[in-house]
């Protein structure tokens, strides 16, 4: 079973990664990052059971806390840029280049 869970987590991670590359709405991009973090958590929990120690679950718990903080900051930044540009598209922000 462990392998199944891991493959699932790998798939979710990869889908999240692709989503970051494909979506232009900053909020959706950020959701994809969250999906990646969730995939990580699944791997942690799976490994925790595999090894029979609690570290994995513990890390997953910490990741949730960290992710929550990150979400707050991230959404604040996105709101900030939306206010200025009236657009949440990440492609709009490309004054800095070359």
């Amino acid at each position: 079973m462990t392998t199944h869970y891991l493959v699932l987590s790998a798939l979710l991670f990869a889908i999240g990664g692709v989503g970051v590359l494909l979506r232009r709405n900053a909020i959706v991009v950020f959701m994809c990052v969250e999906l990646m973090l969730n995939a990580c958590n699944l791997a942690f929990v799976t490994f925790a059971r595999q090894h029979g120690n609690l570290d994995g679950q513990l890390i997953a718990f910490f990741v949730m806390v960290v992710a929550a903080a990150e979400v707050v900051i991230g959404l604040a930044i996105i709101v900030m840029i939306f206010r200025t540009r009236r657009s949440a598209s990440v492609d709009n922000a490309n004054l800095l280049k070359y």
Partner: protein
Amino acid sequence: MQSPAEIVSHAGGVTGVSWLMIALPLFGAAVLLLGGRRTNAWGHFFGVAMSLGAFAVAVVTFVELLGLQPEQRRRDIGLFEFIPGMVDLGMLIDPLSISFALLITGVGSLIHIYSVGYMSHDRDRRRFFAYLNLFVAAMLLLVLSDNYIGLFIGWEGVGLASYLLIGFWQHKPSAATAAQKAFIVNRVGDFGLLIGIFTIWTTFGSLAFADLTHEVAGQASEGTLTAIGLLLLLGACGKSAQLPLQSWLLDAMEGPTPVSALIHAATMVTAGVYLVVRSGAFFEAAPTAQLVVTIVGVATLLAGAIIGCAKDDIKKGLAGSTMSQIGYMMLGAGLGPAGYAFAIGHLITHGFFKANMFLGAGSVMHAMNDEVDMRRYGALFPVMKITAVTFIVGYLAIIGFPLLSGYYTKEGIIETAMHHNQILGWLAVLGAGLTGFYMSRMVFMTFFGKKRWADDAHPHESPAVMTWPLIILAIGSIGLGAFLVLGNRFMNFLSPAVGLPQPADMPEPHVFGVGTAALATLALVAAGAAFAWFRYGAAEVPAVAPRASFLTTFARRDLYGDALNEALLMRPGQWLTRIAVFFDNRGVDGLVNGLAAGIGGTSGRLRRVQTGFVRSYALSILFGAAAVVGALLYVGNI
């Protein structure tokens, strides 16, 4: 790296602050150059003060050194380690370096003082003093460094200062050209020196003088030592205007006269002699290199004398004479420990009387509206007595008039050379005779005979700020030689640094220093002087140089030195450059330009990858991650 030589740990004292010797003039240069016009009002005094300060430190250091036992008169002062174990900068205070330091700061200070008067009408006087200070600092670094790196830095520093000072009057095209010439010719020598230093480093693994003792040098093969010696000699030839790199010195007289006195007579041009003496360990172990040194010395002393005979420009005449006298020193330096003391002694006395004469010449020029042609002088003795008397003292010293400075030191070189090798000795005697002729010619044409002044010339004595240095230098020209040579005082003083000669190498001492060679020299000098009197003292001197014999033309044209350079170096050089340029354009340049264009193009293209879209960046991260994972799996053989 603990040096094998005994290092006396210094427990404070003045030697602890002897770095001030270099630091003070350097500070002066920095203040004057960075301070800009704000320092115009007091800059020259500041420069003089810095130079005098360095002199004071040198004197105190010297006195302290004298207070020690002779074998302890050697102090290594580590200033700082640059690359640990590889490049350290430090100062070596020993009899040899302190002698130089005293000469440089002493004569240098006098010339600084003189320049206050001489340059008083120049708008850029501050800049001039900045360069002078820079020169003094670099020269002191050259002689006080305890390794070849520091020496080389100082060497380049004096080269730079010399370049700046020769070209000081940039508005004169001749000055600019002369400065460039000096710079380029010196590059040839510096190249040799640099390769020499590299060779020393690869052979012995150290560049500190303390590590490069006679024993250490003896371990290398003679071929290597000869190569090192010849390479160092090439460097010395460049800086000291020895054949075949002599041609820049005469042109260098385009610089202001104090520069000629300080740099191109008293101090910088003697750096080559210092280098040869300092590197004695290599030369003494390589007789071939030593022989070449003596040959170069003799050839130059004759060439310089011949040039001096034909010049009508007073400064160029003196420049020829400088070449010639440095030839003597080089000859002495090539004779091993027996000659070192005389070479350095002559260097010091020469520093005095030649500076004296240059400054005298400057004083004359000052009086004659910057006229340099001796054919326009004559009968200046009554008008400017102090200048004339001091000049004549210098003159008597240089021709070796008995009991004056030059007599003792030059005679020492000639006799040691005679003892070493008869041919060298007699050629040196011949050179002395020529000296007697051309120097007398100079004095007679300038101070005696009839007035041949330009119509608007109103000669007058120079101000006290210029004459006092002359007087002090003249006193040195009189007494210094006897002080140094009698009783081998200087030789004994120097011996901890350069070693004592074998008794067999020494000529027999004479009562009052009169031997066969000396008698011959005196006779020839007298003949030369007499001949000069008949030609230029008693007879009428034409105001325009007459057409002359082949020999005179030969001498007037600097022995065709420039033509020779042109034929031997410039033409082939130009061919070489043309070929090189061809290949350069086609091959190297193509390569370099191609490379540059390639890098630039790559850069431009890579730059476009940075599209500004955050999603592209994320893509690159994902690709990178995949690549790193793949690579690690590949490396891990999975």
